[in-house]
């Protein structure tokens, strides 16, 4: 089995972002491999270690700087990396075509994609690539098993979890709970520099959406002050926390 595991290069969780001229300013922010994609890399590497997978290919689509995320995937155990290089902002549907091409070129049986991407929080890429490949999609997987040529999974659905199975090939979107991703160790970070790394120029794909403006969500607080009889205020507070804020 050959696995392609998609990795996205996103500002790390501690990065402070701002907007400038209607665009997100990311200069100075440190970038990292998207946390949701790490579960896919981990799963692929575990299957390689267990002899289920023959090769793990990490694929990214984005600017030259996305090399960092791919190097992390190599340090975590992927065998080789492919960077489809572009500086354009492509929406997930536009990204699906070149990504599907890369999956076919690698001769992959499984594609792992993070359940959603941390930059725009869209959960569209996995379904879009599955559509482009014509493969079945298992989204939000929390358990995975290969039985012969069948992929068996347990995945989250709106009202609980569901058992899922389909013949390979398939696209799987990954999330917390699937496994516990390992750390890149220093020896593996150093070895990653010696693994094959392929740069592919993006061609023939145009963005079908464009960003008109970007703004940070405002964080105005409602600042409700409850006054009056302490017992009544306490009861009101509990009601608000339970029924409105859903915090209880």
């Amino acid at each position, binding site marked *: 089995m050959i696995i392609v595991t998609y990795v996205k290069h996103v500002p790390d969780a501690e990065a402070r972002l701002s907007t400038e001229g209607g665009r997100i300013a990311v200069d100075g922010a*440190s970038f990292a491999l998207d946390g949701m994609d790490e579960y896919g890399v981990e799963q692929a590497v575990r299957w390689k270690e267990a002899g289920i997978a023959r090769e793990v290919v990490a694929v990214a689509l984005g600017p030259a700087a996305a090399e*960092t995320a791919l*190097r992390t995937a190599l*340090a975590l155990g992927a065998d080789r990396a492919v960077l489809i290089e572009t500086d354009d902002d492509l929406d997930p549907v536009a990204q699906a075509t070149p990504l599907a091409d890369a999956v076919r070129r690698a001769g992959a049986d499984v594609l792992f994609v993070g359940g959603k991407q941390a930059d725009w929080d869209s959960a569209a890429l996995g379904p879009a690539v599955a559509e482009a490949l014509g493969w079945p999609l298992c989204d939000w997987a929390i358990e995975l098993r290969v039985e012969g040529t069948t992929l068996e999974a347990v995945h989250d659905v709106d009202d609980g979890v569901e058992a899922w199975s389909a013949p390979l090939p398939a696209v799987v979107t990954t999330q917390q709970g699937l496994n516990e991703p390992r*750390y*890149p*160790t*220093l*020896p593996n*970070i*150093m070895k990653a*520099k010696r693994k094959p790394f392929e740069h592919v120029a993006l061609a023939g794909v145009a963005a079908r959406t464009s960003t008109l403006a970007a703004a940070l969500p405002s964080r105005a607080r409602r600042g409700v002050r409850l006054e009056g009889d302490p017992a009544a205020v306490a009861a009101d507070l509990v009601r608000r926390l339970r029924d409105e804020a859903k915090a209880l």
Partner: protein
Amino acid sequence: MDFALSDELLELQQAVRAFARREIAPVAAALDRDPRFPWPTLRRMGEMGLLGVLTPEAYGGLGLGHLAYAVLLEEVAAADASHATIASVTNGLPQAMILRHGTEVQRRRWLPRLASGEWIGAFCLTEAHAGSDAAALRTRAVPVDGGYRLRGSKAWITSGGEAHLYLVLARTDPTTEAGARGITAFVVERDAPGLSFGAPERKLGQHAAITAGAVLDDVFVPSDQRLGAEGQGFVLAMDALDGGRVGIAAQALGIGRAALDAALAHAGERRAFGRPIREFQGVAFRLADVALRLDAARLLTHRAAWALDRAARATKEAAMAKLAASEASVDACDAAIQVLGAYGYSADYPVERYWRDARVTTIYEGTSEIQRVVIARQLHREHGRSVPEPVT
């Protein structure tokens, strides 16, 4: 001249920072209260590569230089000083000495186990009466058929009783005239009959870096476990000390940085007289001075490490780095306690632990006073070289 760390080193630093924050920092307070040698986290440090940083890849280490070693050890120390002390000893003393002075057979025998962290290494130089004056050591190594018998006691052994391998300095020539030239280095494994350890010392700080005395009661050491020639031991030990001092400097910087971070966080949040206390110059100037001293010490430390990557010795540079970093670190911790006020004095906050952990950095691996002696001696040597002999 370039003050930036290489991209590769920055990447390793980030990886170790994330590792140390997630794995080491969360256990530091509990290990301080209930001291135990931190085997579970040391195992993970071994997998990470942190217990064989300087040892070449051929022997299972990372094969990095002293600059990388200093940068990575600072990250460990910023999470917990005890872990940094254990790592500093096993990396910088037994491994560095076996690598430099061991035979190929000795390197293959011990380095892979030490570099992977399967074994922890310790260093036995100090004795109860011989600290700064290490050459006054009295432990004897008497030649016998096939090897030596070691008899004596060692004090303040980091990882004593826990480590698997002890690099022991003992006297093969007891005559007074032999002095430091009568000392020889040996590798003693933990299960050697006659080797025993005292109860862990009760210390001000660094509680998880277990320290104990060792007793060598007629311990037989085969000849193939002698490191270097007879009488060379003291030179070998002094040779390793430059690297050891860079390690302690880096450790001190890490503790000092943790203290500064805690003080900055508190000074931004804590309000008094209607404003965050960082807006008062009394607090702001103190923190500015702390940052200045830590940064200056970091530059000295990186320079000493850089020099050691280019030459076998960098004695003055290493002594300056160790002196500056350890004293800046204690000062940073003291400032952090003052900025946090009563919270700084409370064991529920980490800064009093930082101070207790940092305090020994001005004592071990050569006290501040010894560092000044070393610096002054080097100054006179260099001065002598540049000044022509007086004409008589």
